[in-house]
């Protein structure tokens, strides 16, 4: 099947790819991500028990403690951070996380990635050219 392309605004340059973790539900940083294992620990979240390592995270927003970015940052420093970020709309927690992680990230997408990207679909984020390429199964 031909990959689907969604255009958007590249935030931090670069190109990265990986399996997608997709949820419309905002996620906690504090008590949401175990930065020592890379596993999401937030009770009841669709990502619970899954590792963010080398994943393309498709997130609607942050919630909980203001210490959101430090947990994703600590995971990255430990070598178990995500590959790229797809963020249709930025909030303050997400924006600072993008500035801290310096990973390929994209926002202001021309269509809804939560509709278009299936969980575990292979996704390429090209933040230099400003598009997300979705390989559908």
């Amino acid at each position, binding site marked *: 099947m031909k990959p689907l392309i969604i255009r958007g605004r590249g935030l931090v340059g670069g190109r990265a790819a990986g399996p997608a973790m997709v949820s419309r539900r*905002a996620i*906690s940083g504090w008590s949401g991500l175990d*930065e020592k294992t890379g596993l999401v620990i937030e009770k009841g979240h669709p990502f619970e028990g899954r590792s963010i390592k080398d994943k393309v995270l498709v997130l609607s927003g942050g919630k909980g403690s*203001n*210490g959101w*970015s430090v947990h994703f940052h600590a995971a990255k420093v430990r070598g178990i951070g995500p590959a790229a970020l797809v963020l249709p709309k930025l909030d303050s927690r997400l924006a600072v996380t*993008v*500035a801290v992680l310096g990973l390929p990230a994209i926002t202001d997408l021309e269509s809804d990635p939560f509709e278009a990207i299936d969980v575990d679909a292979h996704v390429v984020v090209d933040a230099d050219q400003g598009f997300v390429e979705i390989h559908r199964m």
Partner: protein
Amino acid sequence: MELTIEENKMLDGEYGPLVSHALRKTIDYGLLVEAERLCDVTMAHLFCGAHPYLEAYPATNFDEAHSEMSFVGPKDLVFDRLSPHCRCQSDVFPLPANDWEAMTGDLDKARLNDLYLGRFAAMGVRLVGTCVPYLAGFIPMPGEHYVSSESHAVLLMNSLWGACGHSDGIESGFWAAVCGKTPLWGLHDPAQRKGTRLYAVEARLGTTHDWDLFGHAAGLKIPPHEIPVFVKFPRPDIHGLKSAMASMATTSGVELSHFLGLGPEAPTLEAVLRPGASKEITVISAGDLEDSRAYLSCGRRVPVDYVSVGCPHLTIHQLGEVADFLGGRKVSANTVTHVWTAAPFKETADRSGITKSIESSGARLLTNTCPLVSGILPQGARSLAFDSGKQAHYMKSETDCLISYGSTMDCLKTALSGVWEGATG
């Protein structure tokens, strides 16, 4: 981005590499959110101490650890100054300042924390060490731009009197404190502070605990990016709002909530609601509060090893209520009981006879942190009780301990008997 002459001087290194780097990171952040300018930050509430997240970087050297974990900069960055235009005080520490041994026997950890706090003190950070900075002199005026690492403090100060801050993290707080700037966007821009969605409370909120439950339940109904307007709600006091904001900022990402007729930006519905926003009202019902209670508390008369009250940190009035309730009775020998507050209130409690009264029961009055931030529980504790939706909610993810949750008095009754005395079922 349009920079002032002074900002260009900072960027060019006239004030040294740390200031230049902090401003560069602030500009990077601003470009992401398409800010056209920066604004002056005059107050910063900072996450100081040897906190566990810093352990990701394998260095116990203050400057090296902060170069990576706070500034994402070169290894040789020396973190030794803050903006002279920004008044700084510290958020909670990773250990109790008055008795670290009450939480851990790890002397190395305590020494490292003291070393880190000493560096912050030398820079001029006032080591208040509380999550309720607004009760300890950190009071940004309406329209004043500040940074804070405490989510509920941001929500409360923005909502109750129109201060301008974001929940934008620990690193960006340090950047702002060093360069005195943050991007002019979002809640720093008066035009972007209007409410986007209406809510009504259809539940009795008679006690601080009711407000705590309300915050948890309401947060679950606030989607990302929304600015709620509560059009119907009982009149709160500061204790109720303190708890409501803490639990609301746990289950949502909300940074500003308007309460119609209460905050300065919400005199009328017309003034507070964003033009074109839906007038549909989402109800927070008594049933929603019950659902939150059922989620947060195991609801059984189980033996409890550890009782922790004081999230957010208790005020001096709440400490007096704790002392009055305990009335010199002894807590159970099977239960460790901690009461949390900020050091300035502890000092007052000492002088008022409150500390002596609480501690004569066998409970400990501790300062400057909490089980969640320290990440430390008493050894062997497997069944925990909290008077805070924030602690209970996060602890459900952090641990596999049994969690009970109720009012402060429910928790204190539990401390006396050693068995959960709050709501069951």
